[in-house]
């Protein structure tokens, strides 16, 4: 006769059990899910395409969060940029309108800046700057985050917003705090996103994609 039931507390749950089957009925409170890490290695582009390489960029999540860790560029004084796709990454060039501004402070205390910058896009399809004038010194990089709201929605335009801290190209460099936000002016679902430098490769760094339910 099969052993059909184990009474509660008859299990030593302080041991380690590796389940290779399926566990159901466990209610997880998890709402922030790491979907994919992409690590640059002299990469001309880093792309997250829904359905490819374990990437999810659809209505599974309402909100997506990209985190950028120590993005280091090959070529001095280049911008980190991004665009999106509505055709599975076949092309990246969705019409967008955005704003750009930054604050900056030079290491020798000789210069500060706060203001709007003209890297903005008005109903254009070019790649959008999300960090400006990154330096390529060995210790230079940029880190930050980008929120993408409801990309699979087919009723509304698609909002995003980002903030980056960067070490810029000058000597001595500036600490830059770069803000962008805007919208991809389409009611088609966005299903892929691509990041690249305005010229040259992303030599190193990580972009992590999270989904928020």
């Amino acid at each position: 006769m099969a052993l059909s039931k184990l009474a509660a507390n008859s299990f030593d749950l302080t041991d380690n059990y590796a389940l290779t089957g399926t566990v159901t009925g466990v209610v997880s409170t998890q709402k922030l899910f790491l979907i994919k890490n992409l690590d640059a290695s002299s990469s001309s582009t880093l792309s997250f395409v829904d359905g490819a390489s374990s990437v999810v960029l659809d209505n599974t999540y309402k909100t997506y969060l990209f985190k950028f860790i120590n993005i280091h560029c090959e070529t001095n004084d280049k911008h980190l940029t991004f665009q999106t796709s509505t055709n599975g990454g076949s092309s990246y060039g969705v019409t967008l309108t955005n704003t750009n501004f930054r604050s900056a402070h030079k290491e020798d205390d000789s210069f500060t800046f706060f203001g709007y910058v003209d890297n903005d896009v008005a109903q254009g399809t070019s790649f959008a700057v999300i960090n400006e004038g990154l330096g390529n010194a060995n210790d230079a990089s940029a880190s930050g985050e980008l929120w993408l709201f409801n990309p699979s929605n087919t009723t509304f335009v698609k909002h995003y917003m980002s903030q980056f801290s960067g070490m810029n190209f000058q000597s001595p460099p500036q600490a830059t705090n770069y803000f962008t936000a805007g919208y991809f002016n389409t009611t088609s679902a966005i299903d892929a996103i691509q990041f690249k430098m305005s010229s040259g490769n992303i030599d190193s760094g990580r972009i992590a994609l999270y989904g928020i339910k």
Partner: protein
Amino acid sequence: MAFGEVGTSLSKIKANSLNLAGTFGFSGTVTGLADETPLVLLSTFTSDGSDATATFASGIDSTYKEYLFVFNNIHPQNDEKDLQVGFRDGGSDYDAVKTTSYFEAIHDEADSSTSLGYQTGLDIAQGTGFQTILRFIGDDNDQSASGIMRLYNPSSTTFVKHFVAVGSSVTGGDYANNHFIAGYINTTTAINGVQFKFNSGEIQGGTIDLFGVV
């Protein structure tokens, strides 16, 4: 003891004596599972198309030190209206006293206008009114606003309560509007409720998720 149910005499099942390739459906409470998330979803407001307010009347307490609201595609009934927030400090009204700052960057689709600056008409100095957090949202079918708002340690009875909001709107005049709001609720009474509403008209679309940040 009936066969088929093992009682207290069995104190431990040795590792590898259980068929872990099977399927186990737990109906009780499983604790101790490693949970990767720093976010716990507490509640979601989903517009039914004609909401005067979006109210989070419960779930904001001492459980979490930080609460995160995520706004997706908030859509107004009337053109160029502002989504605003009020905080409840123990009574029934969302009228806790606030001091806040507000600045924004804007850029129009025609590329004819940009600006970055403080908006003196949108801040609050020791006022009880609602604070604008998503501004000038257009009412075209595809227009909306999205963003986030963080509320820190609302249950503290020692400190004032800080909050920070960042939003992205497409305005009725076809501008991208990026707005930044921060301030504090100037009370040492716990904040236990948050309400959002437009300065005029209904919330006719969108969702607001409330997360506790672990």
